[in-house]
């Protein structure tokens, strides 16, 4: 997973994997030496696989109400216990995890895409364009995020719900909103990378060989700037999962029938003293996912830093 991200540009260009020396394989070799990152990658894969395929094996319906078993602790029938309506928490968490992780990755994709675009344009152009884009970045950084998130969702939730349905509407809105507040660090990172890379001799050499500016940016500068961006991307995933949980916890996320991890915490809030398991399991899932993603990001940073010789 870690290796393939960087290997793709080289692999697609047709280099046979003759010797284990391509930058991607080299990064994978270094990543493997980072034990915490490898362990985190394993745990994270388990979580991802569980939410993807878990519902196929744990076939209890997420909305099966059973008043004979409300607020029960973990048991064989309900490994993660039940909520106040007797709904099975494991089933709800597996289903909700899909939404939480999907929001995390989709918001990261939005943030990284916007960030690369803004950063690359700012980094390659000098003068007023660069200055204007950096003002925009600073502006977004200085906005108070949570109140604004709440306001935007409050304002547009109903419009989007009418257009594309309640679930998809909220999903798109939340992804866009979280993504549009997460691109600034990526943009700054990409711009800084571009500033140093565009003065490199190989960029000059490529220009001397007749490459146009878009070609220079896409083929020569961007691939060299991607390492830190991938790392920033992993941190964005974690931040987006937390942001979604926060929104759901404040009651402004997905509708109540979609049990994202944050939503589960929100629902469990009133029963903390006599049914702590209800909050502990989703809270633990968020904690574990965010922690492992950050460790994987850590490992990737070490693996993708070309100056490090391991």
């Amino acid at each position, binding site marked *: 997973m870690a290796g393939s991200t960087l290997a793709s*540009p*080289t692999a697609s*260009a*047709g*280099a*046979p994997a*003759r*010797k284990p*020396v*391509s*930058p991607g394989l080299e990064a994978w070799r270094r990543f493997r030496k980072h034990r915490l990152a490898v362990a985190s990658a394993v745990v994270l894969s388990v979580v991802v696989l569980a939410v993807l395929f878990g519902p196929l094996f744990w076939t209890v319906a997420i909305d099966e109400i059973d008043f004979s078993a409300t607020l029960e602790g973990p048991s064989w029938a309900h490994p993660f216990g039940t909520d106040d309506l007797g709904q099975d928490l494991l089933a709800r968490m597996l289903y909700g995890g899909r939404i939480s992780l999907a929001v995390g990755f989709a918001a990261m994709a939005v943030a990284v895409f916007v960030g690369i675009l803004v950063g690359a344009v700012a980094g390659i152009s000098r003068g007023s364009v660069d200055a204007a884009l950096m003002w925009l970045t600073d502006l977004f950084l200085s906005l108070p995020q949570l109140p604004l998130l709440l306001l935007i969702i409050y304002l547009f939730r109903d419009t989007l719900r009418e257009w594309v349905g309640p679930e998809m509407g909220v999903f798109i809105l939340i992804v866009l909103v979280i993504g549009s507040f997460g691109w600034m660090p990526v943009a700054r990172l990409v711009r800084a990378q571009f500033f140093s890379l565009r003065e*490199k*001799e*190989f960029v*000059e*050499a*490529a*220009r*001397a*060989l*007749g*490459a*146009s500016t878009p070609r220079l940016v896409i*083929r*020569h500068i961007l*691939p*060299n700037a991607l390492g830190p961006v991938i790392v920033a991307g992993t941190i964005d995933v974690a931040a987006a999962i937390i942001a979604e949980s926060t929104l759901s916890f404040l009651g402004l996320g997905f509708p109540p029938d979609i049990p994202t991890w944050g939503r589960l915490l929100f629902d469990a809030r009133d029963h903390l003293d006599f049914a702590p398991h209800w909050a502990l399991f989703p809270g633990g899932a968020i904690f574990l996912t965010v922690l492992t993603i950050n460790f994987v990001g850590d490992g990737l940073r070490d693996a993708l830093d*070309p100056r490090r010789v391991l």
Partner: protein
Amino acid sequence: MTEGMTAERDTGAAATARRLLEIANLKVHFRTDDGWVRAVDGVSLGVDRGETLGVVGESGCGKTVTAMTVLKLIAMPPGKIVDGTIHWQGRDIVPLTPAEMRSIRSKEIGIVFQEPMTSLNPVYTVGEQIAETLRLHEGLGKRAAMDRAAEMLKLVHIPNPSRRVNDYPHQFSGGMRQRVMIAMALSCSPKLLIADEPTTALDVTIQAQILEIMVEMKERLGMAVMLITHAMGVVAETAQRVVVMYAGKVAEEAPVGELFANPRHPYTQGLIRSIPRIDTAATHKVRLEAIPGSVPSLLDPPKGCRFAARCRFVMPECLDAQPPLREVSPGHKVACIL
């Protein structure tokens, strides 16, 4: 200046067919916070088909800027071509658009830079990088371009080329990378190769190899070479004609034998005297001669001869006006009143 230029024009008109590159009165200035730096200030030189022109001078004398301007690789702004023309095969390339310049770069004029360690993109194999140029300019397919890349590597004497094309730049040594750069610059068979201090970053034995390869390539492909260097020894070995530059101007231009036998400009004389000599150094304990002082600021250059402050033969007239480039014998021009 005018006198020198008319002389240049006369010879140029007689031999336009032979002339590949003709730079006339080129002025490239750079804007800084302190004012305009006149990095290149009225340089005229020409390169004939199939010849090697050496361009020598100390750091900051405008050699590299002149070369980069030919390919318009100067960042503008802050740089600016203030005056002058650059004729490539009879066509002025100063007013060309970026797209037109791109088709000249590497297809007609190739360039090799000073820094082989950083001139290759670390994320692509060397084969891919050579192939990219070929696909861009020659329209070759992926497979054909890779095959040609391997051929090019073989041409510059990289052992085991068909295997090495798939290696990444970090798996090559400095000398090997410079050979890859040469292969890349030559892949589209340009008519002129500009080599900007190609051996400066390499150790002496590798320098000799690289120069040998360049001479061999030049003969095999019949191209002209503009060799920029500050090593007089390199020039003596490879060039047919030499242009000596000082502080953004041409100080002297002569065939290589003539220049070493009969240097007219005090700066050229100083340069030649400062070459370490193995015979005298061994027998007598002589200090290596140096030219006292340093290059004047190009921000506000002196009114008279730019070398006057360091010249051992300085005369009052030298401080009044810049001496024009005048022909002292066929093909030998000097910008000095002596």
